[in-house]
């Protein structure tokens, strides 16, 4: 492809990202130095007094981030949720993707269809379904508690707990892990495994020394697709989370909706963006090293 046609093709997405990502980020950065308006929005950033401009900008919003450790703790907690969710998705998704990629060709389409089937119903409808499943009078909770009762263990509540949040986040994000893994695993040349067998590798060795290293790009892609949305999640902790299972996304939402404090919401959003980029960069860098090491 020529240089010009390549640039022409990348122009629309570049412009799109510029308008809808770069410019808003700059606006948000600017907003983080302004004062909140009385009813939400932002207060004017300059005023004219005696014909000269006076600027109303402040470091206050950023200072607030560091004046106590609670926001840092919240970031760490959200990170914890994201790591756990990603790990569970990987543990559940890998065998599934492997199985689909090694099944008969004509059955694969059906299996893939089954994996993306949940997308056919709305995200929120699926969360509300989980609320019914987890409810104290729901069949699942009743069954779990009657089982626990047999062993003399006190009944547990599934709803409104960190467990509920993680189960639901895994459920929602699992396809995002399986699909890139499948796309990778499906391309593996079966001859490699035959060669490994011929050279005396056991089943486990064939997986660990051939399949797994080759699948790492799929593992990274899937992990990033799960990790990033989970880190900023707010809907699931809002609905299933109880009194102490909130994440950074909830606090950002709270700043914009309930507190009407756009500047501080901007500060937290920028920190989340930075944290996400840093983590993804670290992830791809270590991934790179493994590949070439």
């Amino acid at each position, binding site marked *: 492809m020529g240089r010009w046609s390549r640039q022409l093709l990348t122009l629309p997405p570049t412009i799109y990202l510029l308008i809808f990502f770069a410019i808003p980020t700059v606006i948000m950065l600017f907003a983080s130095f302004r004062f909140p308006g009385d009813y939400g929005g932002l207060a004017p950033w300059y005023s004219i007094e005696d014909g000269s401009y006076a600027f109303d900008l402040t470091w206050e919003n950023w200072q607030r981030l560091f004046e106590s450790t609670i926001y840092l703790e919240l970031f760490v907690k959200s990170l914890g949720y994201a790591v756990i969710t990603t790990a569970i998705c990987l543990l559940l998704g890998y065998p599934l993707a492997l199985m689909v990629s090694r099944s008969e060709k004509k059955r694969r389409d059906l299996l893939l269809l089954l994996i993306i089937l949940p997308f056919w119903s709305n995200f929120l409808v699926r969360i509300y379904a989980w609320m019914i499943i987890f409810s104290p009078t729901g069949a699942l909770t009743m069954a779990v508690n009657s089982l626990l009762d047999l062993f003399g263990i006190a009944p547990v509540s599934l709803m409104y707990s960190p467990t509920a949040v993680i189960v639901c986040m895994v459920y929602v994000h699992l396809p995002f892990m399986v699909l890139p893994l499948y796309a990778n695993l499906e391309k593996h040349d079966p001859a490699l495994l035959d060669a490994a067998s011929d050279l005396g590798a056991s089943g486990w060795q064939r997986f660990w020394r051939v399949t797994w290293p080759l699948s790492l790009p799929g593992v990274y892609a899937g992990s990033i697709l799960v990790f990033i949305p989970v880190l900023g999640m707010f809907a699931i902790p809002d609905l299933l989370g109880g009194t102490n299972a909130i994440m950074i996304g909830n*606090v950002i939402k709270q*700043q914009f909706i309930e507190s009407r404090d756009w500047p501080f919401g901007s500060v937290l959003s920028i920190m989340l963006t930075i944290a996400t980029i840093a983590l993804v960069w670290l992830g791809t860098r270590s991934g790179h090293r493994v590949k070439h090491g």
Partner: protein
Amino acid sequence: MKKTLMFTLLMLTAQGASATEQLYLFNWNDYIAEDTVTRFEKQYDCKVVQSYYSSTDEMMAKLQAGASGYDVVIPTQNAVQALISQNKLALLDKAQLPNAANESSGFMNRSYDPDNRYSLPYAFTTTLIGFNESKLKELGIEADSWAVIFDPAVLAKLKGKVTVMDDAEELFSAALKYLGYSVNDNDPKHLEAAQQLIQKAKPYWASFNSSSYIKELAVGDIWVAHGYSSDMVQARNDAMEAHRPFTISFALPKEGAVLALDNMVIPKDAAHPKLAHEFINYLLEGKNAAELTNIIGAGNPNSASLPFISEEMKSMKAIFPDPATLAKLETLEARSSKSRRLLNKLWTEIKLK
């Protein structure tokens, strides 16, 4: 109560193409009877497109972020005040609203909108405690005080069975009342004391919930809920209709509570002001207004509705407060931006710790 998240979804499904005129209503959720809406649609050959909100903050945030095109909004008194000062409301044309005469004078001409130039009272609710009567009797707990959601000694028997509103203003108001202060108290020390109280009670609560406590009370998942009187009436009715083995009841705490007077207003940028006036006038008819009490369970500022309201509803103090009860109820005022920032900081800390 919160259908915040369902909002977009509903907007999408509600926008069915139609040639008839559409009225865009932005209302609290569960705050108008379906029959009332359907009859209006038939009578005026139009379609009412409803969007919902579950807290004043949420509604204000949406309008602030540029949501427009609503013909009628139902904000609470302090929000009316804020909307007027932001110059967002259209003057009501009283000539088109003959039924405004039905409003009882006690609810008119309040300080948030002198002479009711922009707003007319719609309904009122109190924020109180809804509870599972059968369960609480079994446990020997009286639900006549805010102690039932704040006192760890009482909560020990209710662990994981209590929800409080996911709304800083409402929850702090309840805590301030329990501590003996006004709901509009601005003293940082008092607000911090309220935060302490909330923090100590929090481990016993199942969740902060403004959206689904009606359902959870009605199916028996939750035994005590902090919420709006109208919602508690619905939870009670739902439990009765489903023949649950328990009854839901509600009570105004003896320390006092928040009274919210909700109003009908027309935004300046409304596309259908004539239909909006017709809708407001229709809602002010005694029979239609009465449905707000009989079906929704809200208190009624409309005198013409009284003959249509059931005796049972009239006898409930939390719905029709007598003068002695009314004296203990307070309306929320708009907070100064300084006090608002402090409240938000305290609220965020509560959510995190």
